[in-house]
């Protein structure tokens, strides 16, 4: 790493070089621990190059030294990590990272250091790294892959992921626009201006911090002004407009069906102080555009010649960009190698900047045109019909000393002796490829253009227009007209009749040098003896050479998609930006078929990588997912609630008091319920009101039992089956009036069942007149259970008669209780005397504390979901989702009494009659008592027909619920066992992990108060 200053003096070329940087202010940053200086406006790449740094990283497979090739998103080599600690982000292109004071960057893919790289040993072993190397070498023996993988990943990884939580914030933003313009170059600006003039809502996304694209490196004029001046005035007009939104530093990452796009805005990467002020780091835009204008420009492609990956070989347009924008020269003496006119602009720019151009090497025999004349007039030595064949470098390939050039004949033959030209950098141009990635993400099909020797947009189903260089229209005037017309057409199409037409104006008029045709050149053979040092790189990021592609073909690969996967061409973060077409060009010779017949590989989103943080957006930490709270939530929180998720709800599993553990808390809660009184927050129970003349009939079709006969004020437990005949939900439904019912569902099923009811009414039983209104959120609901429940209620002011005679089991009353409007139900899921009291949600907290105060003298406790589950299991009540899993019928559960034989039809009835569902010997619900009462069966344990030394064993069923019962002071369990009801009294064996076998006796699934007397108080 030498320290030669490559920053051009401010006064060079009339002060036109380095227009993006502020030369007065200086910024300091570090790369691999070494301090560098730069200016505001620099990128990490330009600032380091200004200090003479060439080496930015080591290549993926061979660990060859690599430098900058491009100047933007196309950069495959100069991948760096930026930020320290938790803010560390790998795989950023140094050419895109804007400099700020204090920036910390590191190189990647080298160990132990960039300059002395152990992996470079791979370069010497490169015969061992041919195409498909990984497949061939490490696939056998299969068991060794785990070992190899570890080493390969460590040596070959593209940077490392941060290990600590990301401290930054991210967010999403949605937007709808009439016209989305992608690309803020002159074509994008023209399209946006045209579209906006019709009154359309326009969004313009530009990948970099600045609008204007290649205006500053292209020459030519627009409306008589230099391109940059025109771009500046249009961008300013668009910024002022109230129907335009400009998005700098925003990549259009993906295009999806019906013009839905993902854009990533890097809000504060370039200025960390913004994040300190509350700005997110990245913002992911989810944009629906009626029309899209794609003005994403074109990327230059290299030509493959021997050692074309040496640091200092870069694209001609990139060299020009570094000079014009940052005032940085890639070196002191540069050879320009081209097959087209555009690179002449680079030779001219270098000359103007005072950088020596010893030779301009052009493969074409007779190039003619304005740019060629300009170069000749500037005294540049032009060698026509010539190609660069090799690069000589010293210092382990790090320092270019010279290139070799030789006469070149159309078709790729070298015809004559080599000449050596001293230089320290090489600018190469093989032509330009339209950036059509977004166009291809959904339906766009590319077509091959023989003149441009590249793929251009062809047909698409999308409301998307491609303009300018992205469409292969490289002439400035033609491109601007296409962009302007595209903008107008897109806006008119989006707005229809409401488009304004008057202010649309005229297309900008541009003038630029006419350019001659390019010559297709993909590969220049090396002269002399071939050896490993002479690699022709096609894909720099994935280290794929021309020889690899040829080898893949020799080994029988024909489809470009297969060759891609075999060689890893065009993969990873780069997605083949510089390599795809060149690979096809090489393959066309090897496969001896033209490029259009070989086809191209698929471009997939994202165009460039987007951060995981942006995908997550706001949804982290407390906003990771929506969480539902019941009305007394704060009381639970303040009183030791140990919450568990139930769907999106958080319910107290138990309440931990004074340092007790869960087991002790649950025991206390259960014994209070059985011996005194306890209070459960059951607000999460689904509640749905149904009303209409056909409500009874509807319920008869929804439930497997009958509800139309239910009397007003009475409640009934019902089962719901799906159309497969399996149990899907259960609950108690109450008749509020003649045509009015209140349904309770499980907590988890409330939204689903409301939707289920609507679906049947709206899509099948059109004739039924029933309104369905979910009211879960309106009511707080508490179960007051235990032998002293009635005493608590009778202490409170109420117009409800809570006495045994006045309030029968399975009935409902409305009234007030201690000033709270309530609906009271006598239902019991614990087996104890129990009332469920519902009150409007805002009264919930008040009623909850009222109960606790009133119950204090009776020893009231709040109980959680685990106590609830044990209480019900002691009584043998099922829980949908524990005793049922979507393959269990009510008959399997012994709930025949709730399955009507009279009704001609209800959901699931016909399926229950299918042979398999009505067969003998199905798994049936039983109770289990372990032989050792202290042993608790594990949840889900399998019973087997016969215990063997090792699996497999024939499984005959599984435990569905299993608990230690504080009431019975022993373990209890329920299980689904094949032919279970005929096995009463049998002892089943449950082999566990580790060889232990538990034994349990099959019993009726009810363990407590078999006669059901306790619920009557």
């Amino acid at each position, binding site marked *: 790493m030498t320290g030669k200053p490559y920053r051009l003096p401010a006064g060079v070329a009339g002060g036109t070089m380095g227009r993006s940087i502020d030369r007065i202010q200086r910024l300091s940053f570090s790369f691999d621990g070494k301090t560098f200086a730069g200016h505001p406006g620099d990128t990490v790449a330009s600032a380091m190059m200004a200090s003479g740094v060439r080496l930015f990283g080591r290549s993926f497979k061979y660990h060859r030294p690599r430098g900058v090739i491009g100047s933007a998103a196309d950069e495959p080599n100069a991948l760096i990590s930026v930020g320290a600690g938790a803010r560390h982000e790998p795989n950023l292109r140094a050419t895109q990272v804007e400099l700020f004071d204090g920036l910390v960057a590191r190189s990647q893919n080298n160990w132990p250091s960039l300059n002395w790289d152990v992996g470079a040993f791979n370069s010497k072993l490169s015969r061992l790294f041919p195409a498909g190397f990984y497949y061939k070498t490490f696939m056998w023996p299969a068991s060794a892959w785990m070992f190899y993988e570890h080493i390969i990943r460590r040596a070959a990884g593209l940077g490392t992921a941060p290990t600590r939580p990301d401290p930054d*914030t991210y*967010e*999403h*933003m*949605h*937007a*709808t626009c009439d016209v989305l313009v992608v690309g803020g170059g002159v074509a994008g600006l023209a399209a946006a201006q045209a579209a906006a003039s019709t009154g359309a*809502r326009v969004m313009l996304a530009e990948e970099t911090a*600045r*609008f204007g694209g290649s*205006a500053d490196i292209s020459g030519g004029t627009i409306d008589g002004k230099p391109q940059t001046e025109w*771009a*500046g005035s249009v*961008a*300013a007009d668009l*910024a*002022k*407009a109230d*129907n*335009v939104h*400009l998005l*700098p530093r925003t990549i259009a990452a993906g295009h999806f069906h019906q013009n839905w796009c993902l854009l990533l805005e890097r809000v504060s990467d370039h200025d960390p102080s*913004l*994040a300190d*002020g*509350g*700005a*997110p780091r990245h*913002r992911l835009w989810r944009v*629906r555009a009626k029309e899209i204008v794609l003005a994403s420009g074109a990327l230059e492609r290299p030509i493959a010649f021997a050692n074309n990956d040496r640091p200092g070989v870069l694209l001609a347009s990139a060299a020009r960009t570094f000079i014009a924008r940052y005032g940085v020269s890639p070196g002191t003496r540069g050879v320009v190698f081209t097959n087209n006119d555009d690179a002449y602009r680079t030779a001219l720019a270098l000359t103007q900047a005072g950088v020596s151009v010893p030779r301009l090497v052009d493969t074409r025999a007779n190039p003619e045109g304005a740019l060629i004349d300009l170069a000749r007039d500037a005294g540049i030595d032009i060698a026509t019909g010539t190609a660069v064949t090799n690069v000589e470098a010293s210092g382990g390939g790090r320092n270019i000393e010279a290139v070799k050039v030789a006469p070149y004949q159309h078709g790729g033959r070298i015809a004559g002796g080599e000449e050596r030209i001293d230089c320290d950098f090489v600018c190469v141009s093989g032509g330009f490829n339209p950036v059509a990635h977004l166009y291809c993400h959904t339906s766009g099909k590319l077509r091959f253009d023989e003149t441009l020797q590249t793929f251009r947009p062809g047909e698409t189903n999308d409301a998307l227009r491609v303009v300018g260089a992205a469409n292969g229209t490289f002439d400035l005037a033609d491109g601007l007209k296409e962009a302007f017309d595209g903008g107008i057409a897109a806006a008119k199409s989006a707005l229809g009749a409401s488009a304004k037409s008057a202010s649309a104006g005229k297309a900008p008029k541009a003038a630029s040098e006419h350019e001659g045709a390019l010559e297709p050149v993909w590969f220049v053979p090396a002269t002399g003896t071939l050896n490993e040092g002479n690699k022709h790189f096609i894909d720099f990021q994935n280290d794929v050479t021309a020889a690899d592609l040829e080898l893949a073909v020799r080994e029988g690969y024909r489809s470009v998609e297969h060759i891609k996967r075999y060689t890893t061409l065009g993969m990873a973060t780069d997605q083949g930006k510089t390599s795809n077409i060149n690979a096809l060009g090489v393959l066309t010779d090897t496969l001896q078929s033209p490029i259009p017949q070989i086809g191209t590989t698929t471009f997939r989103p994202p165009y460039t990588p987007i951060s995981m943080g942006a995908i997550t957006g*706001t*949804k982290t930490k*407390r*906003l990771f*997912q*929506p969480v539902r*709270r019941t*009305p007394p939530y*704060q009381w639970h929180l303040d009183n030791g609630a140990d919450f568990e998720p139930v769907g999106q*709800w958080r319910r107290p599993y138990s309440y931990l008091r004074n340092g007790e553990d869960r087991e002790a808390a649950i025991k206390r809660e259960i014994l209070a319920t059985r011996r005194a009184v306890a209070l459960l927050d059951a607000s999460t129970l689904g509640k749905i*009101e149904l*009303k209409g003349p056909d409500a009874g009939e509807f319920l008869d079709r929804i439930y497997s039992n009958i509800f139309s006969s239910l009397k007003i004020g009475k409640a009934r437990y019902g089962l719901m089956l799906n159309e497969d005949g399996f149990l899907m939900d259960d609950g108690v439904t109450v008749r509020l009036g003649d045509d009015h019912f209140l349904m309770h569902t499980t907590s988890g099923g409330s939204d689903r069942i409301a939707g289920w009811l609507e679906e049947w009414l709206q899509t099948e039983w059109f004739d039924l*007149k029933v*309104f369905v*209104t979910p*009211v879960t*959120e*309106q*009511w707080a609901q508490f179960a007051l259970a235990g032998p002293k429940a009635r005493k608590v209620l009778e202490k409170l002011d109420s117009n409800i008669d809570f006495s045994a005679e006045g309030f029968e089991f399975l009935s409902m009353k409305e009234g007030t209780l*201690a000033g*709270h409007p309530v609906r009271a139900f006598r239902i019991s899921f614990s087996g104890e005397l129990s009332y469920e009291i519902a009150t*409007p*949600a*805002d*009264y*919930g*907290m*008040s009623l909850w*504390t*009222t109960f606790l105060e009133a119950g204090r003298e009776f020893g009231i406790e709040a109980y959680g979901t685990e106590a609830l589950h044990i209480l019900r299991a002691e009584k043998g009540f099922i829980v949908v989702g524990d005793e049922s899993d979507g393959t269990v019928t009510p008959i399997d559960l012994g709930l025949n009494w709730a399955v009507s034989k009279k009704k001609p039809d209800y959901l699931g009835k016909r399926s229950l009659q299918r042979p398999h569902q009505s067969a003998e010997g199905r798994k049936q619900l039983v109770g289990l008592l372990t032989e050792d009462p202290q042993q608790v069966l594990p949840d889900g344990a399998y019973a087997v027909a016969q215990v063997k030394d090792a699996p497999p064993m024939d499984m005959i069923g599984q435990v569905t619920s299993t608990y230690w019962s504080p009431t019975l002071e022993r373990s209890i369990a329920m299980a689904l066992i094949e032919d279970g009801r005929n096995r009463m009294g049998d002892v089943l064996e449950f082999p566990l992990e580790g060889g232990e076998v538990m034994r349990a006796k099959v019993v009726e699934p009810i363990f407590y108060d078999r006669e059901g007397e306790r619920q009557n108080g």
Partner: protein
Amino acid sequence: MADAKLIGALAHRGDVERQPGLSITLKVVTGRGMIDLRGNAADAKFMAAAKSAIGVALPTAPRTSATKGDVTVLWLSIDQWLVTLPREKLTKTFAALRKKTEGMFALATDMSDARTVIRLSGDGAREVLMKGTSVDMLAPDVIQGTVRRMLFAEIAAACHVVGAEPDVLDLYVFRSYADYAWEWLLATARSGARVRLYGPQDIPTT
């Protein structure tokens, strides 16, 4: 013994009155009664009965509302409305509605506590909502009185445009999600994260 007390879903929060560092103002709207009303809009008798009980004709155009005095009716569906009114008027109006629609195919439910209403006011309020919804709150047809149901921050919500220029938006979310929605708004309405879509911007670099 404690008296019956109404305690809203956000009453536990200390930041309901004032939230520093936000680009807009958030407030909880309290004291409103709400009735969910289902009925057939094509049934003239039902429509007349509802109007006479509520005092406002039910709006039938999708995504609109109707206001008279302190009563506002939000269109929720082709057969569903949300009647909002001062809580002290609720009992009487609810009883009247049930009585006048008796025998008709209609369902009125008191849903006063089922939803929490969060008011977003100030320039950029629509953009704050758009961080959580794909609904285009800047569309020309979103005007004062518009009601939009939406998926907001992964939960069901409805937005009522109470006022425009400056924007006053009432966001209706189900009560159990109120704390989550409030947190979401605090996170996305930070001043430093302000987005002003389509408005004038700084002159960009070229």
